[in-house]
């Protein structure tokens, strides 16, 4: 990736000025062409500019790039929206069943995330892949480019390391 993020993106334009110049256009496209609600269209436009921030030096035609990006983003938004069921107009408003145990699971998940930030980079990757992404040991061995036996040992060792550093509060 090319990251030459700069207040001046190398094309003689300040990114703030590019933002001001195109923001309304992008929101307008999302709202009028794709019928996306105003608030969500604004969020999409912000996100398009964030992506632009990193890519600006490689972009030949800023306006075309931004328009293509908001169109793609709008299509993706609509595809995602089609997969969600609207709430019934009347009647009960049931809670998301996934959140039923949220009070119990969130502290554990937060603690796990914090603990996983303490060990070495290799251990961080192994633990995230195993416990946050749910990969199997053979898959982790594949991703890290090592053997299954070594991956098993690594995960065990990394769990110990994370626990020691989390309890001891060190390593960060």
């Amino acid at each position, binding site marked *: *990736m*090319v*990251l*030459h*993020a*700069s*207040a001046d*993106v190398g094309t003689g334009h*300040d*990114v*703030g*000025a590019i*933002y*001001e110049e195109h*923001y309304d256009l992008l929101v307008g496209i999302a709202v009028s062409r794709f019928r996306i609600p105003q608030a969500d269209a604004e*969020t*999409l436009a*912000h*996100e*398009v*500019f*964030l*992506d632009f*921030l*990193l*890519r600006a030096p*490689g*972009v*030949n*035609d800023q306006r*075309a*790039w931004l328009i*293509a*990006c908001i*169109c*793609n*983003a*709008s*299509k*993706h*938004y609509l595809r*995602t929206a089609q997969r969600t069921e609207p709430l019934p107009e009347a009647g009960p408003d049931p809670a998301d069943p996934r959140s039923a145990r949220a009070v119990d699971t969130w502290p554990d998940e937060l603690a796990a995330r914090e603990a996983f*930030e303490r*060990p*070495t*980079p*290799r251990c*961080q*990757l192994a633990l*995230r*892949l195993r416990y946050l*992404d749910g990969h199997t040991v053979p*898959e982790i061995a*594949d*991703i*890290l*480019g090592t053997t299954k036996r070594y991956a098993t040992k690594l995960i065990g060792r990394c769990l110990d390391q994370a626990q020691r550093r989390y309890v001891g509060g060190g*390593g*960060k």
Partner: protein
Amino acid sequence: MIGDPKAFARLAAQLEAERAAAAPMIAKIVSEPERHLDAPMPPAWRTLGMANALCDAAREQLFHSPERSLYVAQLAAAIAEALPDSYPRLLRAQAQAHAWKAVATAHRFQSRHESALRALDVADRRIANEAALGIDRATLGLARATTLREMNRLAEALLLVDEAREVFRHHRDRKQVAQWELLTGMIHHRLGDVVAARQAYMRVIGPARDAGDLHTVAAAYNNLGRAAADAGDMNTSVAALRQARAIFRELEMTTESTRVAWSVAATQLAAGRFDMAIQLLQDVRRDFLQLGMSEEAGLAGVDMIEALLATNARTAARELAGEVVEEFRRAALNERALQALSFLQEM
């Protein structure tokens, strides 16, 4: 949420400062990346600038040492995954996807195709819900198609490149369009359609040069040289390979220079200059093995066996075939190469 032009410009300035702060550390990290994977991560490294700079470094290392590239990419992935929540969610997800793509590419360069696909799965998941990152999804699609082509899963590869093409064209991204053309040519080439492949390679050169992407220009010349040789057009082949070699040397890309040397040797083989081909292939095979590119080394070995058989050096051919089959088996490399060698071993 970055909600106004000033906040947006501040973030741009912050990212530039992070990038500048990362630069002096990169050379030191790249000199021994494996050690840094097993040492505590300094808090100052948890920046987007550092993650992105390491992704760039991983890409550069691909052409010198794919193994080192993998370690650098893993370090980038660890940093990207640990970025603080103060960064916009989209930028964190994007950095993670780029780092996992770098991991995938390093695996692919070492012929670990299943590992590459798994790393790309992780990258895909990181940006699956980010509506604005369509071009990143297309880029990941292109990386997956490249891997699938190497695995000879050509129909799947073609489907993916077609999907990516529209996104790149809409964005008027000349560099990515050129890379898309290159990959399309390579798939046609593998399918045996040399005419379509040559046309695609020719279409790469102008746009890639305009976009300043000399690596892609050189890759197109290299592939054009091979396709021309396959079509029996030796003059075009030699001229194209000379161009490729000159550019890769200028760019100091060792792995790619070796690929061109392999193409030159293949051209000699196709022209029936077997002694010259054998001499060149020996060097190519040695260089690939030193670079840890086992599959390429094995396939160059297959070419060499063909040349040895053509000169009636059957004993040497049989010995080399055994050696190469064993190398492939040890590295658990693809069926295509094993089949080719088994066939040759029967001779």
